[in-house]
Each structure stands twice: as structure tokens, then as C-alpha cells.
């Protein structure tokens, strides 16, 4: 039996231009912030078609029509979506995503589209999406944890200074526990990178 070969692209919408605007929020959270609810699958498709037409002209538009472009999944909360396209045209679609620089709605924010995973079956792409989201959680926890630890250490330092004589050794067991927990996180986030 002949079957149509397809490619599924897992894409993340990233917002890099807001790094450092809000001081208290970790960078990972800012980059992966939720997308506006005005972005619907239809709007996304319209944006992609326009970009392909801009870059590849009529040839590209036609190829996309024949390629059966579909939005299989769109999550505004995690800024993630999955696209389906025939295998012959997926690079064209990917290029169009690379060229897009704002959310394809009216007055859309500047953003970049990053293709995280390309796969031949939707099951694998789903697994990849879950894995990616998990790693993201760890990265956020890691960054937030770092801040907490810094605050804790500052407190302990102050405590040390006020009653320096007697129990300078006391905070060590706490610190050790903290460190070991943190190292685990660092390992995971490094894997992800």
C-alpha cells in the first residue's frame, strides 16, 4: 500500500525582546510566555500562507495547498503548536516560520518561531512536546531556586555576622542539602540545552 509520507513540526513561539523588562521574573518564563488568545489556528495558517507566498511566490503557495498543511495542536498557554505537512514541502514551511518575526494577528507582538522537533509520526512529536515542557519546568524551577538560595545565603551571612562567635558551623547542613538538590536541577537543564 502506498501511503503519503508526512512530517510533523513541533514549534515554540519565543518572546526574546522582553528579556529584562520585568526584573523579578526568570528569563525562561519571559521567553516562553503565553501567547495572546487572538491567535487561532485559522489566524496562524493565514500568517504562514502569507509568509510562504511572500518568500516562495505562487509556487510555494501551490505546494502548501497540495501539501495538506494543517494545525494539529495549538496551545496558547504554552506557546506551542504542531503543524502537519507532506514530507516534500516541510523545509519550505520551516523556512517561512524562520522568516516570521511577529505573532500573525493584528498588532502582533514581535516574536520568533523555533522548530523544536521534526518527526514522521504524531506520537513521537507528542512525546517530544511533553519532554520539552517538562524540561522547561525544570529550567524554571532551577532559575527560581537559584534566586531563593541566594536570598537564603544572604540571610545566613547576616545571621553569622550578628552572632559570629558561637555557632558559625550551624548553617552548613542546610547548605549541603541545598547544593545537592540544585546540582540535580543543573544537570537536567544542561541536558535540555
Amino acid at each position, binding site marked *: 500500500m502506498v501511503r503519503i509520507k508526512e512530517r510533523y513540526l513541533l514549534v515554540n513561539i*519565543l518572546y*526574546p*525582546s522582553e*528579556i*529584562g523588562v520585568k526584573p523579578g521574573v526568570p*528569563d*525562561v518564563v519571559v*521567553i516562553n510566555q503565553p501567547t495572546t488568545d487572538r491567535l487561532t489556528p485559522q489566524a496562524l495558517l493565514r500568517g504562514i500562507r502569507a509568509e510562504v507566498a*511572500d*518568500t516562495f511566490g505562487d509556487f510555494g503557495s501551490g505546494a502548501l495547498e497540495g501539501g495538506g498543511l494543517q494545525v494539529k495542536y495549538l496551545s496558547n498557554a504554552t506557546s506551542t503548536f504542531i503543524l502537519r505537512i507532506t514530507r516534500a514541502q516541510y*523545509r*519550505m514551511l*520551516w*523556512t517561512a*516560520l*524562520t*522568516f516570521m*518575526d511577529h505573532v500573525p494577528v493584528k498588532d502582533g507582538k*514581535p*516574536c*520568533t*518561531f*523555533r*522548530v523544536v522537533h521534526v518527526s514522521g509520526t504524531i506520537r513521537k512529536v507528542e512525546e517530544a512536546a511533553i519532554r520539552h515542557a517538562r524540561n522547561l519546568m525544570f529550567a524554571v524551577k532551577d532559575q527560581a531556586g537559584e534566586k531563593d538560595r541566594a536570598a537564603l545565603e544572604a540571610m545566613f551571612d547576616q545571621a553569622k555576622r550578628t552572632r559570629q562567635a558561637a555557632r558559625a558551623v550551624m548553617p552548613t547542613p542546610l547548605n549541603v542539602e541545598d547544593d545537592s538538590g540544585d546540582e540535580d536541577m543543573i544537570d537536567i537543564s544542561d541536558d535540555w*540545552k
Partner: protein
Amino acid sequence: MLYDLNIAWSPSTTQSELTQTLKFSASLGYNAVALNHLVEIFPPQPKNPLPRFPSQTSQSRPTTKSAASTNDSGNKEDKNAQQNQNQTGDDRSLPTVLHRATVCMSDPASVHRIPQLATLYDIVAVRPTTEKEFSHACQEVKIEVASLISLDLTQKFPFHFRPKPCMAAVSRGLRFEVCYGQTLRAGAGDPRTRAIWIGNLMELVRATRGRGIVVSSEARRVTELRGPADVVNLLAVWGLAAEKGMEGLGVNPRGVVVNEGINRRGYRGVVDIVQVAARDNGEGATAAAAGGNGKKRKGGANEGRGGGNSNAPPADGTISKRQAKKLKKLAMEDGGTTTPEENKS
């Protein structure tokens, strides 16, 4: 390791914009980036105006470290290393930042003065615009002077890239730089520029057959950065094979950085000091003593083990347990298989 050897910098770039770009570049997975200073008119006394970042102290300018040769150099270096570790620990969100100068070759007088930049920047590149400059860059600019030929692919070149000068440059160790930021930027402005960029890229890939190409961003704003996979795909569509594209992000720029580093640190770009052994007499003596102790203890342990294990051969204490087991097994096998044969014969 992924490299992005061109983050555009100009005097009007603010620190916060730059930090934003660097942070996003790190989160996309780039390990080392270079801030690029485009030198269009060669100043009479060149200076390096690029801002410094804390993570830089660990990698660049290692000469100061190795120059320290006092008695307590060991301690000092330890302290330095610790400080660096602390700094990098605090700024894990930033990649390694290098400094780079790109010299426009339009001014013939400036070409002779490029070596002056070597001490100021980590990487030096040249940017030719005409055929004469291009062939000069390919065939005559020494690898010690500049290791990158950066091309502004958005302008229409009045000549074709021919394989001979291009391959001569690649085989001499020079690399061609392709900046994808130019084409992302081009979409907003003149629609022809993107077409010209694509045309130039295809011609360059045809001339070099995809070898010796370094891919970088030349991002002026943070939105002009793209993930490594996206970039590789982009160039794959325009004719650069995917594995060549990966080389352009990893192996080739690494070669450029290492080469430039050795040119600056090493002797004639051939001999390099990787690590200096401790020369302190007192320290050496204690180390030797520690070694002696270690040996003694080891010997003692071996003896103890030998004493415990009655089957071990007493003469060679150096034989390892594993080896002994192997020998024993061999001996048993020999005993099992050869004795009947002997009996037969």
C-alpha cells in the same frame, strides 16, 4: 559547542539590548558568541570600544595568568580560578563573549595596518567589496592577520565567485562568513535584497562546494537571532547541505577561534603553553612526600591483601587481582586440556 561569531555592535547599541541578545543567544543553545565591531575607517590609533562581560575573564587574555610566576603563584591562580568560577556561576545565562573586528578593505592603506588590531581583539576579519579586494583577501591576506572573510551578501557584487580563489582561501585556512541576519532584516525593507542575498549565497556555495563556510547571525536586534536547527534548515533550502551547515555552526568557527587564540598566545602559532607545572621547591617536596606516603600505603595494602590471600604468588606484589585470576584460569584450562593430549602422546 555552537558558535555565533557575529553579534553586530555599534556605538549606539545599549548595554541592556546587548545583554538581551546575549541571554537569548545562550538560551537558544549557543555556547560562544563574538561581538563584532565593524571598522569602516581605520582610526589613527585603534582602540577596542567593545564592552566587557564578566564571563570573559575566564577565557580570553590568559597571558596574564601564565605570566605570574612568583612563589605563591599556585595560590593566586587557585584564587583566580575560584573567582572565575563564581562569576561564571552567577552568569550562567550568558555565553562566552569574544571580541571581533571586521575591517572593510575599501581603504587600501588600512589593509597594511590590520595586524595592529591583533592585540586588541580576539578575532579579526576582513570584508572585501570589489573583485580586486576579494582576490587579495583570498590569496594574499595571511592567516595570522585575519582568519575570516566576511561577506555582505545583501549587496550585488560586480563579479562572480570563482572556485579557484575561493578554494585557495579555504585550503589556506581562511573561512567565509555568511550572516543570516542580513536576509531576515531584508524582508522588511527592499524586497530585492533578499533575492540578492540568496543569489550570492548560492554562488558562494557552488564555488566552495559548501566547504569552509562559517554561519553567524550579524543580529542587530534580539529578534534577528534564530535557533541552530532553524538556521541549518534555512541554508539547506538555499543549497548548503545540512551537515555542511552544522559544520558552519560548530567545527569551522571553533577552528577560527582556536587558531586565532594560538596565534596570540603561542609561539609562532605552533607551540602553545597549555598549563604551567608548579615550580615551587617546598611544594614539590611536600608533593613528593605525599606521593611517597601514597606508595607506601599502597604497598602496605598490597602486602596485607597478599597475606590474606594464601594462594597469591608471594614474589610479585605488582600483579593485579584481575591478572592473577586470568592466569589462574589459564593455568586451569591448560591443565584441563593439555594433560589428556600429553597423555595421548
